[in-house]
């Protein structure tokens, strides 16, 4: 346990020294907060830059606060995921490639601790960044539109966070046996994209897909009730995260560090 804490401390320190603890939360805040702001000022923006012919009358229905919050969340569907994958793509692979992983693991260091400390390290970074960003969106939505109840904010945060955690864990999984971080990012993103596309086009057949979690969260925000299919999707996401983590430990141990 003591060793595991040192490993985690190192992950945290590294992410402070390379400024991940600054830019990740910042990017997450910018991504989410711009949504309520642009939606609020949309009529003025169009008026200023739209160049609409004179006499055009545009009626914008004011979106509900829940709609705005849901729209903020969808910002993470593409850019957010891209950032998560890019920031985790070399978490183990780069250390193996450079050889520093071998320097550490010739010491009596547990392979399980090595992998799980990295997982927890990136999870902390993800959840803190996501919380900051989404909290910002909730706050601005509240100021510019209407405050969404905090309990609903927390529930949607947890649900969507599970999906983002799935993405992080999938990236870590490919890290456990591949050395090229570019390749890891490519494969992870391809899988996420395919999963999302198939799940939303075949949403009836694949209602249990973790990729639909983001849709379910949106529905929940709009309707105020959890969609029925969500339970399966949520459970599968959690089970996948655990399974991927265990597989990562197993594959990492099996691989020869020196090769």
């Amino acid at each position, binding site marked *: 346990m003591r060793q595991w804490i040192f490993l985690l401390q190192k992950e945290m320190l590294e992410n402070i020294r390379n400024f991940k603890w600054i830019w990740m939360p910042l990017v997450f805040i910018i991504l989410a907060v711009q949504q309520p702001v642009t939606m609020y000022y949309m009529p003025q923006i169009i008026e200023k830059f739209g160049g609409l012919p004179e006499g055009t009358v545009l009626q914008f229905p004011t979106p509900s606060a829940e709609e705005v919050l849901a729209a903020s969340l969808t910002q993470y569907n593409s850019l957010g995921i891209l950032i998560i994958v890019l920031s985790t793509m070399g978490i183990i692979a780069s250390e193996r490639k450079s050889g520093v992983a071998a320097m550490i693991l010739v010491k*009596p260091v547990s392979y399980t601790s090595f992998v799980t400390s990295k997982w927890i390290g990136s999870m902390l970074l993800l959840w803190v960044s996501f919380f900051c960003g989404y909290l910002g969106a909730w706050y601005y939505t509240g100021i510019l539109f209407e405050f969404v109840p905090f309990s609903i904010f927390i529930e949607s945060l947890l649900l969507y966070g599970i999906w983002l955690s799935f993405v992080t864990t999938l990236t870590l999984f490919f890290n456990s046996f591949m050395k090229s971080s570019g390749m890891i990012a490519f494969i992870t993103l391809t899988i996420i994209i395919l999963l999302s596309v198939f799940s939303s086009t075949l949403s009836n057949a694949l209602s249990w897909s973790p990729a639909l979690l983001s849709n379910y969260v949106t529905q929940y925000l709009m309707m105020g009730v959890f969609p029925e299919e969500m339970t399966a999707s949520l459970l599968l996401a959690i089970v996948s995260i655990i399974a991927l983590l265990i597989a990562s430990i197993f594959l990492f141990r099996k691989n020869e560090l020196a090769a």
Partner: protein
Amino acid sequence: MNVLTVKELRKKFKRNNVIKGVSFELPEKKIIALLGANGAGKTTTLQIIAGLMNKTGGEIQFEGVEAGTDTRQMIGYLPQFPVFYQWMSGKEFLQYVGKLSGLSNEAAAKKTTELLALVGIADAGKKKIANYSGGMKQRLGIAQALIHDPKLLILDEPVSALDPLGRREVIELLKKLKTQITVLFSTHILSDAEEVSDEILFLHHGEIVESGSLEALTAKYKQPKITLVFERSPQSYIDQLHQALKIDEVDINGKEAVLLVNETDKARDIILQMSVEDRWPLVKFEMSKAKLEEMFLKVVQGQ
């Protein structure tokens, strides 16, 4: 007492047999040199012992340790090209690996200070490793290998990447470590092995082709040789010598002639006597034993 016994160690990469049944023992508190040309399998052997690579067959047995237990606590390992977390300082890295190896915070800090001084980079302890020179990284590498007081220190080419001064210092360091710890180090630089090692293992194409203490090997392979340098071509004098004494081999190179003989004492008397009597234009007369390098070539070519 042996710290480590390796029996019939084998390693296969796909269809390529890299290590073909290597067996040796590492006696306690001795320095053992693993000698071999590039590609002989030195690094692979060391990596398998350090646990960074799986073996295809054979046994590695630490003294007093049951097979299958984690032996990493007992081993300090320096890879051929040590790499570190560039964003850490040397001191931070040493303390980090010290704590990972089970030292308390205070013990890790104390050991770090000691080792930084021992390897001669005490001043650079607070600098970022990214700013270290190659020699400093090598020293930090040795320090990290020693941090948890291992029983066996494995060094992969510890001096190959260093300049003459750095090489000298690492050799001196190894001499200091003698009598305290067992060291297994690989090298293709024969003079280094000759200088510090108690025992030598010759690895050639994945097999141990010769091994033993330095003295035993020299005794076995030494063939005294006599080097003569004349003012002009030595051919005619060598012809004269052939009549007076049995010469195994002659190698004439310009004005220099190298003779391999068995009865050295007799050969010396005859050569010196003839050179005086016949007024040979002799510039240099030298008697020497075969060096490790020649030994190495002989062993390898004998295969």
